[in-house]
């Protein structure tokens, strides 16, 4: 992953400012899609912050998202806490959890890391269910607030902007430089004296913090929090897939993966309501075959083509 340019940052800032007007322009349905776009963009970008430079595919996103949702749900439903305090708490817990997971996974690589994160996320899911069953005695977690989709959209937009900014800063810092070397060849990085362990843990912690924040923000939208829904592994897979569809190597890759993915999903849902899953699978296969390096790959190809022609 190359260091992001100032030009990119300016573009990003412009896009964020423009995106802020979306709730004014769209009605309920497209605003809802916008909320989804913001949610997945944040999750996929914060995932990419870690997995892009290190090439480690993490399937732990659901654990962080679930923590955010559960903390808000439990806090507001059982302890009458405020949304904002629970949001802050979930970010902290998400970060700590991620740091612990990061430390635990230091010796793993490749597919072992991937499935390890998956196993961890599943373990957390079952632990939380068990704790809720035996100790919290809660009667279903109701998160009933007055937040509208517009509020959630702006909250997520701000979060997405922060993730991108963080990624931009890191990519231009020494940490980012270290990460690029790690991604190139980890043994070399270690021999050059880079504290690979620390770098990986720090990055993974940011994934956890942002994942939890997104989960906390979405909780009011779902209104009823069930551990098995909010810790669903399907979410981890979708985030990875959207990020990979976008293509790795660029910080804006996830955005370019999320939007078409959600649009295609939406198109299939509307036109094939009775066979949406089947058609989505076919669409998926088509994308994989036609876009070997994701959308980023295609876009870079087009750029190179244009440059070649000029």
């Amino acid at each position, binding site marked *: 992953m190359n260091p992001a340019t100032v030009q990119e940052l300016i573009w990003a800032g412009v896009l964020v400012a423009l995106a802020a007007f979306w709730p004014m322009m769209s009605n309920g349905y497209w605003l809802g899609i916008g909320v989804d776009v913001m949610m997945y963009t944040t999750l996929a970008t914060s995932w990419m912050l870690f997995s892009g430079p290190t090439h480690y595919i993490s399937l732990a996103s659901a654990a962080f998202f679930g923590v955010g949702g559960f903390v808000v749900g439990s806090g507001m439903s059982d302890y009458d806490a405020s949304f904002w305090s629970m949001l802050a708490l979930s970010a902290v817990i998400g970060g700590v959890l991620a740091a612990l997971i990061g430390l*635990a996974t230091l010796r793993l690589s490749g*597919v072992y890391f991937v499935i390890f994160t998956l196993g961890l996320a599943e373990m957390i899911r*079952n632990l939380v*269910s*068990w704790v809720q069953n035996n100790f919290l005695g809660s009667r279903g977690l109701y998160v009933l607030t007055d937040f509208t989709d517009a509020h959630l959209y702006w909250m997520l937009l701000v979060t997405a902007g922060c993730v991108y900014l963080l990624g931009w800063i890191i990519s231009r810092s020494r940490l980012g430089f270290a990460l690029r070397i790690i991604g190139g060849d980890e043994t070399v990085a270690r021999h050059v004296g880079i504290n690979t362990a620390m770098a990986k843990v720090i990055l993974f912690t940011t994934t956890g913090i942002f994942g939890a924040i997104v989960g906390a923000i979405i909780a009011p939208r779902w209104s009823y929090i069930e551990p098995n829904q909010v810790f669903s592994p399907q979410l981890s897979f979708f985030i990875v897939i959207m990020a*990979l569809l976008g293509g790795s190597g660029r910080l804006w890759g996830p955005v370019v993966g999320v939007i078409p993915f959600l649009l295609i999903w939406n198109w299939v849902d509307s036109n094939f309501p009775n066979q949406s899953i089947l058609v*989505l699978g076919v669409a*998926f296969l088509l994308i994989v075959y036609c876009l070997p390096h994701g959308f980023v790959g295609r876009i870079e190809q087009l750029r190179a083509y244009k440059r070649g022609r000029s």
Partner: protein
Amino acid sequence: MLDILVSGLLLSGTYALVAMGLNLQYGVARIMNLANGEVLVLGALAAFWLYTTAQISPILTVFLVIPVAFIGNWLIYRFLLRPLVRRSKSQGALEVDSILATFGMSFIFIGIMVSIEGGFFLYKYLSEPISILGSTTSLNRLVAFLLAALIAAALYIWLHYSRPGVAVRAVSVSTEASGLVGINVPRVSALAFALGGTITAVGGALISTFITLDASIGVVFTLKALIIVIMGGVGEIRGAIVAAIILGLVETGVATLVDPGLTLAAAYFIFVIILLFRPQGLFGRRAV
């Protein structure tokens, strides 16, 4: 105590059936098959449908499933997955591509199955109590266990004592080196993928006799298979068997002695601990 041993071992049989297929597909053909669970459910659907409409015993269905699953999986590898293998320049790229492609495949399978049967595959076969060493269990689980043991043994013998089997093992160690010594890697990979899919489908048919499945539950089995394969070490059939046994015993032990609510948490905990101390899995090789 005996209850834990017996039930735990029988559960291991179930888990072994779930994981052996993926072990072949990932360990040899290098395909991270996220549609593995759906293939299992397809086998189950066949058993359910044939039993409820034509009263055909699931044991017989197993024999019908074998050729269909083999050919089907072979075709999938040949036409859907081989292009990905050919164009990927690294193992990592192939993994990414196979994750995406098999994810799409899993959706297609779910869609097909739901249109055949949208509800639960609810039937019971051989649901008779049987006493093993004083511990009560059901006949269908015992049959599944015995067949799992049979398949595992046959697979082990084939892998270690037959020429194609040795070729398969060679490919699982290194595709380049195997190619260099004259092994037809694409053909061996297709064989491994097809064989893996067949074992999984057979496992599904057997499992459906005592677990009520439905079209959407495949992902749960994929997750379980992934955990077992990684825990045992990729590409090692012994690893998958040992991992299945450990998980079966741990889950049953925890359910009986501690709390049934902690079974999955305990299973994943063991998985996490094993990987922390042996990052390549129980029988895995250190990454080259």
